């Protein structure tokens, strides 16, 4: 038997082994396990702020760790920094390329980053007298779909070139490249302990990576289309994904499988974005149908909806203190709800 045939056989055997091991661990499902849990209260949130300022579709937003400032990115070619309490714009960063798809706030509050169809991640210093470009991280061969700061010296990116990368901001070079997806990487989420991250891609898979050794540790199957959104559950043992297949899913890392699917026969729009409340109990998922649906993460039931945008909800975010949820839309507005 040629080596190619041998490899194929071993691959099939390993896949069967993994499936069997997952089945053996599947002694119940989350919905049954949570049947005794009191339902989450019906969640009715009000729009507290409508942030007007962008002139075109908003593609991304990210909260600062101070729970007050946030950055948003629009294809009007700007990043805007907002004070969410007053609703005022604090800063505007003009972008070299208006085809932006992601933005991020560094935990320190000193830096923001953006990127998109220019295939680059550009990092800006907000604290210099005039906002300065600190670095242009240029090595991806596809669009930048997501960026996240680990610190003022390290950034993680996800790209349409099917890779994710860890960058050193001092040298501007990639320290580690994460190779395993076979479709465009669309989103990433850092683990609470910062030792790993998960990515979602157009190959309909979510993958868990070790940041330091660059290895893909686990692959999560189940979605039937692009995964556009992903987030770690607060405790760090589970992840939530959102997909063009119109569902969200929860996967547990230690059971290595899907625990629950959040879906509704009436929902036939893709999920674009998601964010979790502080305890993880509530999932805020933005959809192509202009709404943000609120799911009870344990029981799998829809418990509310945020309606108010006049176009697709493209991004959602809950600040670290959990005091509100922000939605951003192709209608060019951001709304703050609680």
């Amino acid at each position: 038997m040629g080596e190619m045939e041998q490899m194929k056989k071993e691959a099939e055997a390993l896949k069967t082994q993994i499936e069997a091991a997952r089945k053996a661990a599947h002694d119940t499902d989350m919905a049954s396990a949570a049947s005794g849990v009191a339902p989450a209260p019906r969640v009715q949130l009000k729009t507290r702020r409508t942030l007007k300022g962008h002139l075109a579709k908003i593609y991304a937003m990210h909260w600062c760790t101070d729970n007050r400032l946030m950055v948003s990115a629009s294809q009007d070619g700007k990043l805007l920094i907002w004070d969410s309490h007053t609703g005022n714009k604090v800063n505007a960063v003009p972008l070299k390329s208006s085809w932006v798809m992601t933005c991020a706030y560094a935990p320190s509050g000193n830096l923001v980053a953006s990127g998109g169809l220019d295939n680059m991640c550009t990092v800006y210093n907000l604290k210099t007298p005039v906002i300065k470009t600190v670095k242009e991280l240029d090595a991806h061969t596809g669009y930048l779909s997501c960026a996240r700061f680990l610190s003022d010296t390290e950034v993680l990116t996800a790209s349409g070139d099917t890779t994710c990368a860890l960058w050193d901001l001092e040298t501007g070079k990639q320290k580690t490249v994460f190779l395993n997806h076979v479709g465009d990487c669309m989103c990433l989420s850092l683990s609470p302990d910062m030792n790993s991250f998960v990515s979602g891609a157009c190959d309909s898979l979510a993958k868990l990576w070790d940041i330091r050794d660059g290895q893909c540790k686990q692959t999560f199957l189940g979605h039937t289309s692009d995964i556009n959104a992903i987030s770690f559950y607060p405790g760090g043992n589970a992840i939530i994904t959102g997909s063009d297949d119109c569902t969200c899913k929860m996967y547990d890392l230690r059971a290595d499988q899907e625990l629950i699917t959040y879906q509704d026969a009436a929902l036939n729009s893709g999920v674009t974005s998601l964010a979790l409340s502080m305890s993880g109990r509530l999932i805020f998922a933005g959809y192509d149908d202009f709404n943000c649906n609120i799911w009870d993460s344990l029981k799998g039931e829809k418990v509310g909806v945020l309606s108010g945008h006049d176009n697709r909800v493209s991004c959602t975010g809950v600040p670290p203190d959990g005091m509100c949820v922000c939605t951003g839309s192709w209608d060019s507005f951001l709304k703050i709800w609680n």
Partner: protein
Amino acid sequence: MVSKMSSKMVGSNNLAHARRMVQQLRVEASIERIKVSKASADLMRYCGENAKYDPLLMGIPASENPFKDKKPCTIL
């Protein structure tokens, strides 16, 4: 990226790819898995313990809500 490759190179690329895929599957097959019952119980406990700190779940009193506009008072 378009490049001309001899069929021999394509063959060895496919083999390298297959070897990487098998290696990856070996890593993923080797992990220890816990039962879904335990995973679920741990998640439910986490939610339960943290529910009281979750403002969006518990509701936020107006006086503590930085996003609630304070209504102006009129002195009659």
